[in-house]
């Protein structure tokens, strides 16, 4: 299966601070990928690296088989919508479409116009005069009309009201169905992503905590509740992600490929939000614990 994004030990540093470190991913094509993490975790850095807006400090990244942003052909296959959906405030909507057609050989003018007509956008209005939701739709149209194989969206719905949010996701899903594009979109809210994504990457504190198809992740993570015991006592094929104890009860979040057979556990499936929270808590725990290893 072809990978739409491959990263190997990818890292980006600003001065002495690492915005992204040791990122290794192999995201298959044909997925809608949700990139989740708290603000400042490195999501925007990773996305900018993947569309050629940043050079890596270490490691490598390849998107659709090529280094991002290096050739005109590679640029044409990836559509990008940046955070805050930047547009040229003084230029009209139709100016933006013209811009798209001048700068993209694969531009589909009819697709762009149809999409805008259905959204009810007046093409003579200046981009600075329309609402945030309309600007997001304009930016999505610009990214989509060049018929990319991959769409990358950086927090596209964070600042939208619920109705605009729903309309944006509807439009996005329509594009996925009609053109078969892969999508990578980032958010710091899990609820937004649950319905549209089928692949998840959790990024906390500049590191990838977990990555995989949502179906597989939900099938292999469980919440175990039972009488108080030591988390280390679990079989080795059950990886403990999180734990909390009262004096009589233990609650563990574990990852395992095999069914949990111990009858003293009450076993529950997790939903996506709980899963992400478990990994985020684990990351914060690891930060607080003093580092005992000596780095070579």
């Amino acid at each position, binding site marked *: 299966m072809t990978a739409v994004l491959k990263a190997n030990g990818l890292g980006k540093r600003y001065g002495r601070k690492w915005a992204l470190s040791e990122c290794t991913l192999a995201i298959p094509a044909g997925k809608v990928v949700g990139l989740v993490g708290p603000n400042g975790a490195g999501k925007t850095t990773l996305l900018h*690296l993947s*569309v*050629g*807006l*940043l*050079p*890596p400090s270490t490691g490598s990244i390849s998107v659709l088989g090529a280094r*991002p*942003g*290096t*050739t*005109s*052909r590679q*640029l*044409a296959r*990836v*559509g*990008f919508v*940046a955070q*805050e959906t*930047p*547009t*040229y*405030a003084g*230029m009209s909507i139709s*100016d933006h479409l*013209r*811009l*798209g057609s*001048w*700068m*993209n*050989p*694969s531009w589909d003018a009819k697709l762009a116009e149809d999409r805008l007509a259905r959204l009810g956008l007046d093409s003579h209005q200046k981009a600075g005069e329309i609402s945030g939701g309309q600007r997001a739709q304009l*930016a999505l149209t*610009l*990214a989509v009309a*060049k018929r990319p194989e991959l769409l990358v969206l950086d927090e596209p719905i964070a600042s939208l009201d619920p109705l605009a949010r729903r309309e944006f996701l509807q439009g996005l899903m329509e594009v996925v169905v009609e053109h078969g594009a892969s999508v990578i979109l980032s958010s710091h809210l899990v609820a937004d992503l649950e319905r549209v994504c089928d692949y998840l990457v959790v990024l906390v504190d500049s590191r990838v905590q977990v990555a995989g198809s949502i179906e597989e992740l939900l099938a292999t993570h469980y919440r175990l509740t039972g009488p108080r015991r030591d988390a280390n006592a679990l079989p080795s094929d059950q990886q403990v992600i999180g734990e909390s104890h009262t004096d009589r009860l233990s609650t563990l979040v574990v990852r395992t490929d095999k069914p949990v057979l111990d009858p003293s556990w009450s076993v529950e499936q997790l939903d996506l939000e709980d899963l992400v929270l478990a990994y985020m808590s684990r990351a914060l725990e690891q930060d607080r614990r003093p580092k005992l290893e000596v780095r070579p």
Partner: protein
Amino acid sequence: MIRMTLRQFRTEGVISFGLLAVLAVVFVVTGPHLAHVNDAFQSACKAAGDCATASNPVLEVDPLLQSALPFIVTVAPALIGLFFGAPLIARELETGTFRLAWTQSITRRRWLAMKLGLVGLAAMAVGGLLTWMVDWWASPLDAVNKNRFDPSNFGFHGVAPIGYAGFAFVLGATAGVLLRRTIPAMGATLVGFVAARLAVEYWVRPHLAPPLHESLSLLSTGFGIVGLSASTSTSSLYPPSVIIPNAWELSTAVVDKSGHALTGQYFFHACSAYRQFPPPSPAAMQAAHAACITKLAGVFRTVATYQPGSRFWPFQWAEMGIFLAVAMALCGLTYWWLRRQYG
């Protein structure tokens, strides 16, 4: 990409070429009159035989334009740098639209080449047209004043302003990329441009070719001006001014055969009449003055160091070349910096 760049600079382009058109109208209306006044004077003074002494009325015509135009041409390249160059990339970095522009299907290199190339050409065209128009309008004045090689006039004649405009533009663009904000970039461009112009004018241009020396007798030039301070008993000597038509006079000095300059001490020793107090009568003073000059002329000569008028155009092309070469280097710097920061 060409159309995109032009679309982005529509407003600035319209304003610049509009202003040029307005100026062109002004020139066309007033220029022929200037030439006419000069021609009339020339034929009149030739007939009267007093061309060397009579004052040419052309110097009084349109005094406002005569002082404003040099100012406009001198300032134009700086304005081009500020309003074409500084916002070129800084505006995109400021507003975040670079994230839109750089993820279309154009590589970074082509994007930068188009922006710098197209708008740079427009900048140089504006600078060149403006200078050419002012040159044409002021040609009668230049013919009379014969001072277009002077530092105060060199910068708004010929082709050097094309180099200034191109350089100021690229300087603005580079400042914009390094500072990432339009207003600070404008400030940096202004400072940088003025510094570069002054540096070239005082440190580079005089040495573009070895200057010539003209040795003149003190009997024809005089010994200059002597200043004597009664309270401190110090004296200062100001060399005489020598007029070489159309040349750029770098310096004059009164020196002896071994190159030693005439000092105040030597002067007062040789011409004691000047130390007398009270000073002698005007008639006696005149005689003493003539005797003094004759005496000094045996030892000292006035040496004028200058660049001849025939070098005016080579210096123009050299100056344009210098500024454009620096502009090209800045283009390379901008490209390197952009790739380093933004991949």
